[in-house]
């Protein structure tokens, strides 16, 4: 420090503004030029770490969130920390809010209303029975409870309800007489309906009679039609909101608390899911904009409940329900209540279409249709039976996997038989399988023959001319594989005249009429040219479940090779059990998946797998545990490949949008990236894990059963997921299967599967147990069937290592990480990984080497130097990325923090 510079005390004083003016000016002037003093000042106010902290924390502010602001404001507005509306409602103090009534026994008065008694709680208010003194009639009064009356949002909603309901005049919508929105206690006076809600009725009676269902459904639909005509969507149609007037059982739709005019967007709180999930439509559950068709979905759910006595989408929690609403199809109605006719099931299925455009267009149409059916039931001779609703039987049921048409395996046999029949003579009255769609054939009867053409009458009523050569004898019997309602594949277990009992692959079962089933038409799908035809950028994922020993993998290799016109080297340890290929098209956000089943002979079959969209938040695919190669192909060329891991059954691939700009030099870069997320929700502490514990499925515990060609997971409450496997020789089933998860958090599925006969149970390893120990335990315990990609497991294992004193262990870790570094070096060279991935791997390597050296009581200074050198390299790479706009300053700060910490750590220990 030069002698001209003021002392530190002086600078300190300047900071505290504790100096006389003249001196300040002098110091200012000095500060302007003197770098040393500038640095001194910086050091005085805060240490280096603090500067880093400040940059770190303040550079990355939480972006403005109106939703959060609302939440915080609401939280504070409730003058005392208050819980739910219900609690608040419980504190409604009639005496405080109402004027005193002259009549004993009454609750009080409000204006010209005499409040008689409380009849219920709903929405944001309480409902009372009251007498309107001026008009001398009984009314229902809905009042906003005092605590919420002071909440502007609640008040606005309340008034909105009134407006909505008041605008609708219909026999089936509860009438509004008056509304007072500005008073201290806002209230709403409406029709008083003596009767019970549909929910009450269902609770008492269970499923209803068909005529009643139609009657009630029709009236609800009429009421909805009136609401929709006024531009209102109810948004909360559910049995509790359907009142049934005593005596006539006339339907009155009530509680428009959540309704809003389609154009009134301003009052809706962003992101809040309004409404009861169980009857909600998928678009509502997803928080998307809804229109009147959302009410139709809810109507479908109400009809379902009337048919079966229970709601269609049930789960243990709100989010479980929402997930089901969005992704799954409810159990077949007729499976629960066989009295319900198919046509009603079809109507409900159409109302339950996940996409609004697939439902009925208007409530009016539904009302009319139900009315027609009701009329026909009541007077079968006079009223005609309405035309059947064309529910497409092969629409996939939500995202549930469509099992591969196993019948395809029968194809060779049937195709051969088919060829023979080229000259077959059909006769009128023959029962046949006739093609209707290009891929499917349905049961039919021959009605007329004209040369090569045959006029057939399909069992479900359609008529058509078909080529004689395309017909097959109707040979549906026990053991036949067929497609039943909603596109599910199953096996016929019993045939009784025109009815068959089907056991579906997913465990569901039903009695179906022949006219409701169909089979593949006999023309195999053409997969191999598919990719070439589309010529679009395709996202391709290949599922790789490791096998230690698998015959015929060379055939897979060559098949995959022809797909991508590129060599894809699969290590024998990576030989796949199943190959799943998914495609996403550029302009079409829907991605389709195809599942390829391996057969010992090397043939591959294609079957449509579950469809999913590229929308990040909605769809996902269930995967079997294992490693996935994520590949992208373009015009049949493989352009990108990376490895991802699925840890648990039910793990899903979710697509996240990429915010990275497309690399202009590499036109084939992916639009988005797929990550694997675990469905598992429960965090299990080590002490909770017991041997032979059942496997935790997405939301419920269950068991895995392993048979010759299937892996079947059954959850405790009966839901079943079946995955078809490669055909395994049952005599060669191993005694134990080791499946190593490669996740490192508590959901890890590392453990030992025990096979007993054909049952497979998972014993979870205690959390935190390092994988090498499990490997060791596995040795000598029997044949090993499955093992995850060892190198990936090894890499993970290093990162999650609990400090281990065991030298042999450490050495092994070092070896593993060394391999990983080499692997990374190669991948960086190949361009599959960015440079800092290698540096990261090297950092891990040096960290573990240092631990080993410490355990061996060796000096670590050299290693420490190399480690710090890598950290510095990492930092410089990070800065480059920051300059390129790829990462934020905060991230650079984090990397710098690691460097600083490493420097501090290793300067203290070891040599200078």
């Amino acid at each position, binding site marked *: 420090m030069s002698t001209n510079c003021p002392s530190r005390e002086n600078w300190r004083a300047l*900071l505290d503004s504790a100096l006389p003016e003249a001196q300040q000016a002098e110091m200012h002037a000095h500060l302007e030029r003197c770098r040393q003093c500038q640095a001194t000042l910086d050091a005085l106010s805060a240490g280096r770490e603090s500067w880093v902290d400040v940059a770190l924390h303040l550079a990355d502010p939480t972006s403005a969130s109106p939703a959060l602001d609302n939440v915080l404001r609401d939280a504070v507005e409730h003058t005392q920390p208050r819980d739910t509306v219900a609690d608040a409602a419980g504190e409604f103090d009639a005496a405080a809010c109402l004027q005193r009534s002259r009549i004993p026994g009454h609750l009080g008065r409000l204006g010209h209303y005499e409040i008689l008694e409380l009849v219920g709680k709903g929405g944001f208010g309480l409902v009372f029975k009251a007498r309107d003194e001026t008009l001398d009639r009984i009314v229902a009064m809905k009042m906003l409870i005092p605590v919420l009356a002071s909440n502007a949002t609640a008040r606005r909603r309340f008034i909105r309800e009134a407006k909505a309901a008041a605008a609708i005049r219909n026999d089936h919508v509860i009438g509004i007489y008056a509304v007072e929105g500005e008073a201290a206690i806002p209230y709403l006076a409406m029709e008083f309906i003596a009767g019970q809600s549909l929910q009450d009725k269902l609770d008492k009676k269970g499923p209803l009679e068909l005529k009643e269902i139609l009657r009630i459904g029709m009236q609800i639909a009429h009421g909805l039609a009136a609401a929709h005509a006024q531009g209102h969507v109810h948004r909360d149609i559910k049995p509790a909101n359907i009142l049934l007037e005593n005596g006539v059982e006339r339907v009155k739709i009530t509680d428009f608390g959540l309704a809003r005019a389609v154009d009134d967007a301003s009052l809706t709180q962003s992101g809040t899911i309004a409404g009861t999930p169980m009857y909600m439509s998928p678009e509502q559950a997803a928080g998307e904009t809804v229109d009147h068709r959302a009410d139709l979905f809810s109507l479908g759910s109400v009809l379902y409940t009337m048919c079966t006595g229970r709601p269609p989408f049930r789960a243990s929690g709100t989010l479980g329900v929402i997930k089901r609403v969005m992704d799954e199809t409810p159990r077949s109605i007729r499976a629960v209540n066989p009295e319900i006719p198919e046509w009603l099931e079809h109507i409900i299925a159409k109302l339950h279409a996940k996409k609004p455009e697939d439902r009925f267009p208007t409530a009016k149409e539904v009302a009319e249709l139900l009315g027609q059916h009701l009329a026909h039931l009541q007077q079968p001779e006079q009223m005609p039976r309405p035309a059947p609703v064309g529910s497409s039987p092969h629409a996939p049921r939500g995202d549930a996997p469509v099992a591969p048409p196993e019948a395809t395996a029968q194809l060779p046999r049937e195709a051969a038989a088919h060829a023979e029949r080229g000259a077959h003579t059909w006769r009128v009255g023959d029962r046949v399988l006739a093609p209707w769609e290009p891929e499917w054939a349905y049961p039919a009867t021959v009605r007329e023959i004209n040369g090569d053409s045959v006029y057939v009458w399909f069992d479900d009523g359609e008529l058509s001319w078909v080529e004689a050569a395309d017909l097959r004898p109707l040979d549906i019997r026990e053991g036949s594989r067929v497609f039943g309602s909603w596109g599910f594949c199953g096996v016929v277990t019993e045939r009784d005249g025109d009815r068959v009992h089907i056991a579906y692959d997913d465990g569901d079962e039903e009695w179906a009429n022949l006219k409701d089933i169909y089979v593949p038409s006999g023309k195999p799908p053409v997969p191999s040219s598919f990719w070439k035809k589309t010529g679009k950028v395709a996202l391709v994922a290949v599922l790789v479940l490791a096998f230690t020993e698998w015959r015929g993998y060379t055939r897979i290799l060559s098949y995959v090779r022809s797909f991508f016109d590129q060599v894809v080297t699969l290590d024998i340890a990576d030989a796949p059990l199943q190959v799943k290929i998914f495609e996403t098209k550029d302009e079409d956000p829907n991605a389709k998946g195809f599942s390829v089943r391996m057969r010992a002979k090397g043939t591959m079959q294609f079957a449509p797998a579950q469809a999913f969209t590229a929308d990040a938040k909605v769809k996902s695919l269930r995967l079997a545990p294992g490693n996935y190669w994520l590949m992208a192909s373009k015009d049949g060329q493989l352009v990108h490949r990376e490895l991802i891991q699925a840890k648990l059954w039910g793990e899903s691939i979710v697509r996240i949008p990429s915010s*990275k700009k497309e690399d202009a030099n590499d036109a084939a870069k992916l639009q988005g990236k797929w990550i694997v997320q675990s469905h598992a929700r429960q*965090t299990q502490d080590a002490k909770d894990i017991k041997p032979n514990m059942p496997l935790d499925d997405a939301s419920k515990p269950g068991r895995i059963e392993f048979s010759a060609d299937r892996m079947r997971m059954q959850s405790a409450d009966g839901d079943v997921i079946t995955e078809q496997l490669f055909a395994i020789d049952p005599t060669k089933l191993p005694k134990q299967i080791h499946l190593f998860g490669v996740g490192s958090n508590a959901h890890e599925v590392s453990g030992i599967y025990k096979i007993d006969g054909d049952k497979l149970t998972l014993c979870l390893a205690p959390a935190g147990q390092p994988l090498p120990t499990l490997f060791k335990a596995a040795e000598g315990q029997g044949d090993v069937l499955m093992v995850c990609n060892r190198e990936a497991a090894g890499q993970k294992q290093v990162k999650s290592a609990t400090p281990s004193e065991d030298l042999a262990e450490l050495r092994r870790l070092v070896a593993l990480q060394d391999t990983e570094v080499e692997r990374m070096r190669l991948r960086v060279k190949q361009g599959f990984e960015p440079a800092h991935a290698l540096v990261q791997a090297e950092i891990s390597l040096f960290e573990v080497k240092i631990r080993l050296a410490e355990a061996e009581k060796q000096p670590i200074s050299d290693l420490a130097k190399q480690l710090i050198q890598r950290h510095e390299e990492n930092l410089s790479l990070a800065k480059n990325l920051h300059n390129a706009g790829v990462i934020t300053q905060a991230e650079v700060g984090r990397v710098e923090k690691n460097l600083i910490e490493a420097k501090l750590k290793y300067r203290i220990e070891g040599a200078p």
Partner: protein
Amino acid sequence: MGDSHPTRPSLLARLCNHRDDESWAQFVAIYGPLVYGFARKQGLQDADAADLTQEALRQVARSMPDFDYDPARGTFRGWLFTVVRNLLTKFGKCLQRPGLGAGNTEALDRLEEIPDSAETLSALWEAEHERQLYAWAAEKVRGEVQESTWRAFHETAVLGHAPAEVAGRFGMSVAAVYLAKNRVMVRLKARVRELDAES
């Protein structure tokens, strides 16, 4: 920066014993954004994170009357973290690498260390808490100084621009920039310390 500072008993004591509005408001102002920020970092979208925050605040409010603040049994922050963690699983999110699923870039994913243990997740929470303290302190300090002073501080200390450049851009002297930067820093540190201090 390493040590975890226990939540000031005074705020909690006030909340538990008196349930006065002001301490509740202060609590919401500090811990609301903390929960929100943490939820966002775990990959929740804005609306979901706000919902989670609301749920968490509700739980706190519900527990307040019975909450027996005993420093020996663990920090309030730790308890709140448990609440948040449970809510996260309810919201369908596994605790995961920060930034994953939030649309971060592939490069970022690589840079992040994969958190492996409960300790690391807890460290993430603590880090978020730290961040929230700074954010809150920054808001306060910003209100106490002139806008030009704050700007000078922000440009240099937070954004990392050279003081000379900042001086040129805003028409200030280099000295003024340095003074602004350091004075704000001193105040900021004092505020953060204050928030953290045991009563």
